[in-house]
């Protein structure tokens, strides 16, 4: 393949006195074949053009998780991203991971991310729920989450983390799922109860961004959805998220329609709902208040039979990651 000209447009950050960083964009010209990795070219830039350029890297083979950075619109591992796949009109834009403090150039402060991982008690616990035997299928179940290398790409592109810094985030929750699903774990119920606290499993909006950006096909959102199912199956239905899900469930089963008039009350309770009186009046003024008596849809009988069937034969939720194609 022939050499092509590319411009690496890199967001540079320098720490300033008193905290924070000063940021500018800088262009570096490189010549390369399109199938060379972004990391290789960053190394060339550092080695031959500007030794002050800072980025983390180590294994070069997508297993150590050091080089996750924002490249042309999303967070990727620089070591497995081909320059030709991410250049737009010959320009590759590179910035540090988002949702996290920047130390210098492309190096972020990884401590807040790991603090979240520490927060889910990231090790097996002894306890009454420990199984003495393990089966092959038990391992197949956690296989996708144990592929996680904690590179932080999912957290960087998480739409919930962007608006709610308290959110535990996809990677830590995927790790939590790994313990909840392990036959050797002794405190599964306690973990599920803890995960129903605010800013954990019920805060995910299921936007699938984490599934899309994960370089290791971990599908964190799938793990989050499974954690919700398991928490509810064990009776942890007290959280707003669980109540919201149950309200949907009841309405659809009853009449095939959502009763939006009572939905908020059933999710948040009377007291929290009363606080939203202003919003309700505003909606009423615009004629947007839903009817408290929704009609029953045609064919609801069939819907109920589907519910009965699913209750008898539950299926595991599976969110397929995009087909792995070379980037």
């Amino acid at each position, binding site marked *: 393949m022939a050499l092509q000209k590319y411009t690496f447009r890199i967001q540079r950050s320098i720490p300033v006195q008193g905290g924070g960083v000063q940021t500018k964009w800088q262009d570096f010209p490189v010549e390369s074949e399109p199938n060379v990795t972004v990391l290789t070219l960053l190394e060339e830039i550092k080695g031959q053009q500007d030794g002050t350029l800072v980025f983390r890297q180590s294994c070069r083979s*997508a297993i150590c998780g050091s080089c996750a950075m924002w490249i042309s619109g999303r967070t990727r591992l620089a070591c497995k991203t081909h320059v030709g796949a991410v250049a737009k009109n010959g320009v590759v834009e590179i910035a540090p991971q988002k949702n996290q403090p920047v130390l210098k150039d492309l190096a972020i402060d990884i401590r807040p991310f790991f603090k979240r991982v520490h927060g889910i008690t990231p090790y097996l616990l002894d306890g009454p729920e420990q199984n003495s035997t393990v089966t092959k299928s038990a391992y197949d179940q956690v296989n996708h989450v144990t592929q996680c290398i904690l590179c932080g790409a999912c957290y960087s592109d998480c739409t919930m983390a962007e608006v709610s810094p308290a959110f535990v985030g996809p990677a830590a929750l995927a790790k939590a799922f790994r313990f909840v699903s392990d036959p050797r774990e002794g405190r599964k119920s306690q973990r599920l109860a803890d995960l129903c606290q605010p800013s954990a499993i019920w805060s995910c909006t299921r936007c699938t961004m984490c599934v899309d950006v994960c370089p290791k096909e971990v599908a964190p959102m799938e793990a989050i959805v499974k954690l919700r199912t398991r928490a509810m199956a064990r009776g942890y239905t007290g959280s707003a998220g669980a109540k919201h899900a149950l309200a949907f469930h009841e309405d659809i089963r009853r009449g095939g329609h959502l009763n939006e008039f009572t939905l908020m009350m059933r999710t948040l309770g009377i007291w929290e709902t009363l606080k939203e009186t202003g919003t309700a009046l505003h909606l009423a003024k615009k004629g947007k208040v839903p009817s408290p008596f929704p009609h029953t849809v045609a064919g609801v009988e069939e819907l109920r039979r589907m519910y009965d069937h699913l209750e008898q034969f539950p299926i595991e939720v599976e969110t397929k990651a995009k087909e792995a194609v070379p980037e």
Partner: protein
Amino acid sequence: MKSHDLLIVGAGLSGMRAALEGAKAGIDVAVVSKVHPLRSHSCAAQGGINAAIDARDKWEVHAYDTVKGSDFIGDEDAIDLMCQEAPGIIHEMDRMGTPFSRTERGDIAQRPFGGASFDRTCYAADRTGQVLLHTLWEQLVKAGVHVYEECHVFRLVTSADGHVAGLIVYDIKTGQLFPLRSKGVLLATGGYGRVFLSSTNATTSTGDGMACAYRAGAPLGDMEFVQFHPTGLRTSGILVTEGCRGEGGYLINASGERFMGRYAPQKWELASRDVVSRAEQTEIIEGRGTNGAIFLDLRHLGRERILERLPQVRQLAIDLEGVDPIFEPIPVRPTVHYSMGGIRTDKFGASPLPGLFASGEAACTSVHGANRLGGNSLLDTIVFGKVTGGHASQYVRKEGLRDFPPQAMQEEQARIADLKGRAGQGVRPFDLRNRMAEDMNTYCGVYREPVGMAKMAETLPGLRQDYDKIHLDDKSEPFNTDLLRAVELRNLMDLAECIVKGALAREESRGAHYRIDQPERDDVNWRKHTLAHWDASSETARLSYEPVRTVGNPEYTPKTRTY
């Protein structure tokens, strides 16, 4: 000045396992690592970890395979210890939560590996190192061991009476240099693959611990034995696990011939790594390769087996070589992979320097001798992490803190100031490292000959002079990776000299060290370990030798090694 009972450098498998042992012993143990523990290169190990856990297997057989694999220069006491401890280590890792691949019955699955007479390699698909690393990290968090993360060790400090006194550490995040005192130091810093241009190793595998120990007066053992892995990707050198051949993969040349039968008529692709790498190199030299590579063919294994057992390797081949192994053979070539040599220790990981311990790839214990068997390095890291961690913990209980010479800090500060202070356009560290590494590949490769090795030995002093002219762009403090690369390069250069001198002196062929002019093993004169000592006045290596530690087992008597 901060102090701890025991400082462990490196947070890969061996360092973390040693730290757990320290925590269990109740001593004040801390870990220093230049990367976050989960970024350690142990994660890149793919294929598996050996242990005689099957009722039909025996640790004695595992030990014999290892002695034979080492080409009869491994230390037999350490090999016996490792193979005896192996099953216990696997079950312990399992209890800690390692997601090993399982058989239909739920037992830990095992696959065949090179040089082994039983299918004893336990695995987790093709990411065994990663799952072991994550599991030990979980345990380290549980144990609450303090880790100095992203802190680079610049120097191992000794007291005036020749004991370990502590470390001088550079905090990468802030650019600050600080001393740490301790009664003992355990180096678990991995290998030095970056001495060579083409390597399966991470860019952070720069042999820092070995170089620090060496300059502090601990000898390095058997540095001339450098393992070439038979299947590194042609372009990047990235590892493609031996597990591919364990699962039934073939090696074929440009005309599609499965050539290993001509070199190892019994074991074919599963001969030991030195044998397979030489066979491949011969095929390439004699014109039966393509663009300097031969091919690893997995197509006959079928899509399902590849996706279940070797998913990561498949993705790497797609991402880095543009080849999907389900449909096409993967271009591979022998690539620098592992350093059998390292800080010379006894079977408990103690070096001759009082208070200094080493384990894992950084050490030469020596369980691998002249050639390591696949699946034995993960085992080595964890077994000797445990053994050495326990031994060092006992040692520091009996010792006090030693005097920490104040000039050590000043000298290291001066070194940084010197590197940063040079004006103008000098030599770029990137270029200098490439020049050295390229020559090392050429002259100290799979096949070695005396003229080339001598040439390399003559080139090194010139490169060292160029090092004194290197110029850094980055003069700042936080995250100055420009400075770090320069410090690492100095370490690589000192280690390169030990490799070349050891290789030039060893006038025989054994394991990974193969000389065209001396193709036979010479047990009468050369069944001994090379020791490289730092000569502080000339800043060069001086060699001496010591005998192999034997246990008197008649099975271990050297014989012709065939596969």
